[in-house]
Structure formats: C-alpha cells, structure tokens
C-alpha cells in the first residue's frame, strides 16, 4: 500500500483534479484510506484506475457500512488493488441519511444515493446489489438494481444498525395469510 | 384351424400348451433374475467405489430388491397437474412391454428332447427385436411429453433422438453377422457359429453393437436422457412409486436383452462344451459377462455431451457399421 506520504500526494493530486473530492486520509493498521465525498466517487475511482503511476485496476471488494450515531451515517467502501506493485488502497465514500431524525425503522423514507461504479468495475454489480439489499443505498446507473439475497418483496434494510432484530414472526406458507402485513 | 393359430412361420412346430409353459418358465426365470441383477449392480458399484453396497436386508443384501419394491409400491401415485393422465400412465407400460416382448426370441438352446429352448424361433428373428425396440421409443416419448415438465420433455426428446440414431447403427452392425449366417433366425445364427464365434470375424460389428447397445439402454456413458446433472432425471423426473420402478425394471430388462442378443449374435450363444441341455447355462454365462461390462463401464466412464453423442452415432458408428456390412457382403459372396 502507499505509505503515508504517498497517500497524501495521491489525495493532493485528486483534489487538484477534482475539487473537494478527498475529504481526509487515514493510514492505520498498514492500510491506506481515502475518505471521499459521495458525489465524487466515480471521478476518484476513475482517477485511481487510469492515472499513470497509480493504476489500481483491480477492485477486490465493494461493501457498505453503517456508522449509526455518526454523521454522515453510511459509507460505501471500495477496496482497490494494484496487482503489479501489490498495493491496496481503501476508498471510503461517506453518505448522509436523507431520512435522519425520523423514525425510519422500516426504511420507508428516502434513500441515500450514490452513482454506480459498475461502468468502471464490472465486478461491482453483485456487490452493489448486496449493499442496496442490506443498507438501502441506491446506486444510480446500476443495470439491474434488485435485492440479491433477501426476498424481492422484503421490506426494510436489514444490515442497518437501527433495524429491529428479534421477535419478528417468521412467515411460513401456512401462516402467510394470517400474518400478511405483519411488519406494519 | 383349431386352437392356437400358427401366427408365424416357425422352423419347429410345437404343441400350443408347450408354448404356454415355455413362456411362463422364461418369464418366471427372467423376473427372478432381474431383481438380483439390481443387487449385483449395486454391490459391484460399491466395490468399484471402495464401499460396501447394500448389505443390511437379508444375507449379503440379497433381499434388498424386495425392500425396494415394497417401498415403491407403498408410494403415492403422484401425477403433476399439467400431465395428461392416460398417456402418463401408459408411458412406463410401453417401455416395460417392449422389453418383455423382446425376451421371446432369445435362444437359450436348440431343440432338446422335442422342446425348443427359446420363446419362439421365427424366421424374421432379429427383425422382431428391432420392431419391439421401436415401441420403447414411444414409451419414453409419451412419458416425457405427458409429464408436463420441461426437464421431462427435454429428456424425452433426447431419449427419442438417441434411440433412433443408434438403432440404425445397431441394425447395420448386425448385418455382417446375418450375411455370414445366412439367416435372420437367432437359433440358426448361433448354430452357424459352431466353428468360430462371430466376434472374431465381426469384431467391428461387435464393438459397434455394444456401443449402440449402451445408447439404446440409456446407460453411462450415454445416459443423457436421464443425465441427473442436467435434466434431473429426464423423462422419469415426474414419476414416482412403481411407475418409476417400471422404468428401472425396463432398464434392466433392456440390458439383459441387449446382452443376450449380443451373446447370441457374437459369442456363440448356447454353444459350449457338454451336452445340449447345458445350452442355457452357457448362454447365461455369456450374457452375464456382457452385463458385467455394462456395470463396469458405468462405474468408470464419464458422460458424453449430447452433440458429441449425436456425432459419434451418425459420423463414426454409422459409416463404420455400413463399411463393415459392405466388406462382409463382398467377402461372403466371394467365398
């Protein structure tokens, strides 16, 4: 991974190319982190992929996280990799919660939105669907944004920290009629 | 014209009651052996695969088929909503019927003490085998088509296409033997081998016949119609209970019949040292050897792909069999 100085240089260059893209940098546990503005995620990813000397062309993983008490609340993490130099860089796009302050346990309020990176990294297709499925983060421009693991008619975003757990009745085929709409 | 009519031109006339007794005996013996064949296959597969195979029911698992049949009989006669009831029921029936009909011409021996040791020795002989074999096709197709399931439908189509493709090659592979024996009657063909078994001059025909036999009986490596990896169980997918059991039964009957025909056509059938009444024993041993080959190959060889199967049938086996028949015809005419 780039060392601390290299990371600062990368951040500076990105900011020169795209104003206000990198908010802060972090270098902990031997892992380099770029915290970026949510609106600039594609620009940063493309810069990291295409700029000569960087070429983080391999996307290892895309995943989401919910830092509930913190603001902005959500983050989408991109783990990029340069296979020639075996350097990893961790890009973290922070996202606010549009329905903050309301009681939105079932995720019915407006959803945070981010531009999809499928155009740059085709591998992100399933993983962005997974993030949408679990966190309710919408990826604009995703070719097929549906739930991937949970049932298609599921309501709520189960990996959010405020998702109520425990005590939900389970729907079986013999109880589905009695319990229709149990979540209301 | 009293009693039973002489339906076919037979070489040796027998009393009608004798025919009835013979059919009962052949039928009884075959159906006593078939269940043991299933145990044998499972035991052998077990040994091939470093395990035991069935050994819980009865001595060394010999009663396993009884338990299996009991289980199958106790099952519900399930039929999917989309199925066509009559055809759904008649499919397995036809498959079993065609197998059983073919048993009639298997020669277990020549005439001994005024009794022909065979079901019937007709002049069309081997042609009869192909005639009833073509009935089996309809059993498979109806079973698959009427199930109302896509897997069954695909399986049935594969089975049908495979059956007709390989029937041609099989027929041509036997032509050489027929030329050399100068007769279609199986008894005559066996008798013609008293000097030399036809497997020696007709080795090409034998190999083509066996390959086509594997395809006809839907056995590995040509078990595509029931390829469990792709089509679940092909045309049998929607069947349960004894109807499913019928397909299984038919498969073993067909294996036996193909092996027996192979033994009669190529391995000298009932010929062997000792008195004539030992014929059935020799025939049984030779058939058994061929059946073992079926089982062995099942344990060893992977399944071919559908298009490979088709091109093998049409582009390799068919020309080889034709050439073999031509060469044999020329040689037989010249000598």
């Amino acid at each position, binding site marked *: 991974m780039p060392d601390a100085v290299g990371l600062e240089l990368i951040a500076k260059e990105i900011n020169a190319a795209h104003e206000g893209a990198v908010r802060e940098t972090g270098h902990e546990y031997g892992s380099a982190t770029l915290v970026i503005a949510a609106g600039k995620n594609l620009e940063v990813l493309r810069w990291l992929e295409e700029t000569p000397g960087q070429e983080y062309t391999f996307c290892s993983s895309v995943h*989401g996280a919910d830092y509930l008490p913190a603001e902005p609340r959500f983050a989408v993490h991109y783990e990029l990799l340069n296979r020639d130099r075996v350097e990893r860089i961790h890009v973290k796009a922070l996202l606010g919660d549009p329905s903050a302050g309301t009681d939105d346990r079932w995720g019915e309020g407006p959803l945070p939105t981010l531009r999809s990176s499928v155009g740059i990294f085709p591998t992100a297709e399933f993983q962005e669907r997974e993030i949408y499925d679990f966190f309710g983060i919408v990826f604009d421009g995703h070719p097929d944004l549906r739930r991937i693991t949970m049932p298609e008619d599921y309501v709520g975003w189960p990996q959010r920290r405020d998702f109520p757990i425990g005590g939900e009745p389970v729907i079986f085929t013999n109880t589905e009629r009695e319990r229709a709409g149990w979540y209301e | 014209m009293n009693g039973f009519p002489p339906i076919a031109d037979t070489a040796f006339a027998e009393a009608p009651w004798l025919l009835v007794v013979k059919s009962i005996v052949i039928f009884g013996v075959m159906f006593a052996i078939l269940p043991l064949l299933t145990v044998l296959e499972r035991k052998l597969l077990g040994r091939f695969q470093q395990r035991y195979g069935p050994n819980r029911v009865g001595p060394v698992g010999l009663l396993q088929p009884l338990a299996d049949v009991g289980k199958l009989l106790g099952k519900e006669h399930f039929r999917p909503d989309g199925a066509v009831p009559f055809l759904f029921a008649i499919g397995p029936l036809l498959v079993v019927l065609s197998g059983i009909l073919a048993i009639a011409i298997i020669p277990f021996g020549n005439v001994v003490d005024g009794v022909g040791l065979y079901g019937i020795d007709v002049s069309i002989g081997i042609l009869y085998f192909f005639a009833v074999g073509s009935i089996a096709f309809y059993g498979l197709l109806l079973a698959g088509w009427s199930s109302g399931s896509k897997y069954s439908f695909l399986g049935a189509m594969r089975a049908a296409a495979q059956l007709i493709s390989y029937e041609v090659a099989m027929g041509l592979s036997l032509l050489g033997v027929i030329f050399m024996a100068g007769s279609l009657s199986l008894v005559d063909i066996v008798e013609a081998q008293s000097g030399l078994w036809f497997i020696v001059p007709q080795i090409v025909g034998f190999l083509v016949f066996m390959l086509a036999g594997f395809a006809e009986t839907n056995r590995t490596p040509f078990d595509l119609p029931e390829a469990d990896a792709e089509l679940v169980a092909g045309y049998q997918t929607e069947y349960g209970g004894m109807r499913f059991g019928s397909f299984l039964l038919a498969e073993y009957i067909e294996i036996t019949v193909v092996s027996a025909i192979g033994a009669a056509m190529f391995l000298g059938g009932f010929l062997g040292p000792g008195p004539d009444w030992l014929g059935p024993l020799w025939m049984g041993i030779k058939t058994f050897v061929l059946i073992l080959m079926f089982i062995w190959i099942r344990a060893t060889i992977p399944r071919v792909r559908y298009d*490979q199967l088709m091109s093998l049938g049409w582009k390799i086996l068919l020309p080889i069999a034709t050439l073999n028949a031509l060469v044999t015809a020329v040689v037989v005419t010249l000598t």
Partner: protein
Amino acid sequence: MLDPRTKLEESKIADQFAGRGLNPLIEDPDGAVVTPMVESETSTDEQVMTINMGPHHPATHGVLRLVVSLKGEYVLDLKPVMGYVHTGIEKSCEQKSFWKAIPFVERMDYLSYFFQMQAYCGCVERMIGMEIPKRAEYLRIIHMELNRIHSHLVWLGTTALDLGAMSMFWYCFNVRDRILDLFEMSAGQRMHTRYFQVGGVAEDIPVGFTEKVKAFCRETPERVDQYEALLDRNEIFLQRTRDVGIVSRERLLELGVTGPLLRAAGEPWDLRKVTDYLPYGDFDFSVPVGTVGDNYDRYRVRVAEIRESIKIIEQAVEGLPEGPHIADDRKYVLPPRDELGTSMESLIHHFKLVTEGFRVPPGELYNPVEGPRGETGCFIVADGSAKPARVHFRDSSFINLQSLKDMCVGGLVADLIVNLAMLDPILGGIDR
C-alpha cells in the same frame, strides 16, 4: 431512478425477460416448472424455452437457482438467483463479542472454514496489533493447506459426478475423510472446527498428529496420480472440458475473479506469494497457472494445487517450530486452564474474556487471504466496544459467480453444468 421501490414493482416484469411473456422469477416461486412446455410466445420461429435450474436441482452445488433461456440446447441468457440459504451471518456477528463471532464466520463457506477464520482472526489481530507465535502460524498454515486440499477434493468429486464419472466422487471423499480425521484429531471437530483463535490456535496439536499428517502427505500424491490417470487420459472427459467455458484473462480481471479460475487463464496471482499474512515465504512451492482458461485448465490448476499444498504441508510439518501455540497476552487470550485453580488474576481475566470479551480500538480494516476459491477477505468495523460494528466477508464464490454468464452464453446446457461445477460455487458462502 429516484425511488428504488417503484423500480422493484416494475422489476416484477423484469426487463431481462421482456418479450418472453413469462417472468419465471415471479411465476414459479418454487422452481418446479409447471408452465407450458414451450412458450409459443409470438409468431417468431425462435423457440425460446426458459428453464429454472434449481434451487433444488441436483447439480447446482447447493441451492443456487439459474434462470436459463434456451434455444434448443443452446444457452441464450442466464441469471443466477440466490439467497435461499441466507442466514444473516454478517448481521448476527454484530451481536456477538469478537471472539464469539469466530464460529459464525467459519460457517459461511462451509468448505473453507479455516480460511475464513484466518481472514477474521488475522483482521482482529492486525487491529489490536498482536503478533502471533511462530508455531501458531505454522499450525495455521498446515490446517489451511489441508483445508485447501479438502475443498479441492470435494470440488473434484462433485464435478466428476456432474460429468457422470460417479466413482470419482467416492474416491475423493475417501481421501477427504482422512483430512477430516486429521481435523478431528487436532481440533476436536471434523468441520467448523473453531480452531483458530485471536492470538494463535485454540489448542496445541496432540501427540502423533505430525506423523499422521506426514503419512497423509506421503500417500495422497499417489491418489492424485490415480485420479489423473482416470480423468486425464479419458477421451470423454477431455472432449467435455477442453475449449469449453473459456473466458479471457482480461474479462476475468474485470469481473474481479480470483483464485484457480484466474490462474487457469494464465494470471499467476496468488496472495500467498505476494503478501505476508502468514509466513508462506518460508516454504518452497509454486503457483500453477493454465494457458487458455478453459475447463480443462481449471481442472489441471486445481489438481496441481493439491500437490503444491501437500508440498507446503510437508515442509511446515518438517520445520514446525517449538514454542507456545498461542500468544501470551492475557487481555486477549484465555489463560491456560491449569492456572485458573491457582491464580486469582487468571480467573479474573478468564471471567472478563468469557463474559464480556476483549475490546478492539475503533477503526476499520480489510484483510484478505488466499482461499481455495480465491481472495477471501474480511472487513471489520470496530467502534471500541467488545462487539464488531460490522463484519463483512468478501466471498470469492459470490464474486466469481458473475463470470458464469460469460462462460455459458452461446454454449450447450450440458456445458453449463460443467462450467458451474468448474466455477466451484459454495452457496453457503454466496448467501452468507
């Protein structure tokens, strides 16, 4: 696309099935196909048949469902549908303290449990800045490589079964059983051993374990030779795997595919060689790569990997250092059992660890290891408490599954099964 829920409604007549007049996603919830056999949709001559493969299809290696459009026997389009064994493991981990989450994470991909434990424990160890003893590292390597052989053997057996070579299944499972015996001996469990701990391994290996591992390493190459003899020279097997399911190296990299699939296409990418999460540098082994990336290469690469793993295990057992099997840091590691009766301090540590668990400083980290199916990564967010705020696993079969479409479209259904088998998906890992 403002509100995805409206999109969800629309997707009930999902676009990708537009024009087929049938959306199998909605109409056949159980996968049992009772719809008309041939959808004679419009007046076109094309007979497109949509088949639901799975979720209870015998050859999908679990409960994967493939919605396949067929024209005759050729695959036109393919969509994987998953989630049938989703158990919410990532969510459940958030309710458990760090060291109690270990049994959870190893149950995701049920054929590479040691790798998931290593990804998780390694991640936590990096976050708390803990060095683990050399002996523990070697023991981890031995178990992980045994696990890799185990996983590849299960793969080989089931793949051969899908190809119709049923005996291979039993042969492979015979050897696999020996590996499970070894696991049982060292860890007390045959699968899902929870053998790796934060700080090392749970127990030292018992007496006689190394001898058994050595015997295993001596005898297994011969078995692998026999498998190769059965398959490599079998014309049917070659015909069915050669030049089937080729995906270019570039496309695989775009799709994020790792592991034997990528190596079969000629890319020598192996985390064991390029990173130092465990001292793989101590051992002499090579990374097998293929040439064109067809199914035959995939098979060859995996079989070669079995041999390489055996080499690693032999060297690791030979050079197994003496010393403690777990770090001596009472804040994170349970004290030895015998100290509990004599030392008050140990009892307090034990009590604190068992009831509350240890705390991890706030931070987040992604820690990848090379699993049998590719890069197995663990991402942990710690908020300073004793429980992880987020545990995410990058499961290699989940990512690799995206390449199935590239392998299959335009090919035959029969090849679809082979391709899927060669992909080696583990549904427990995909659905998590």
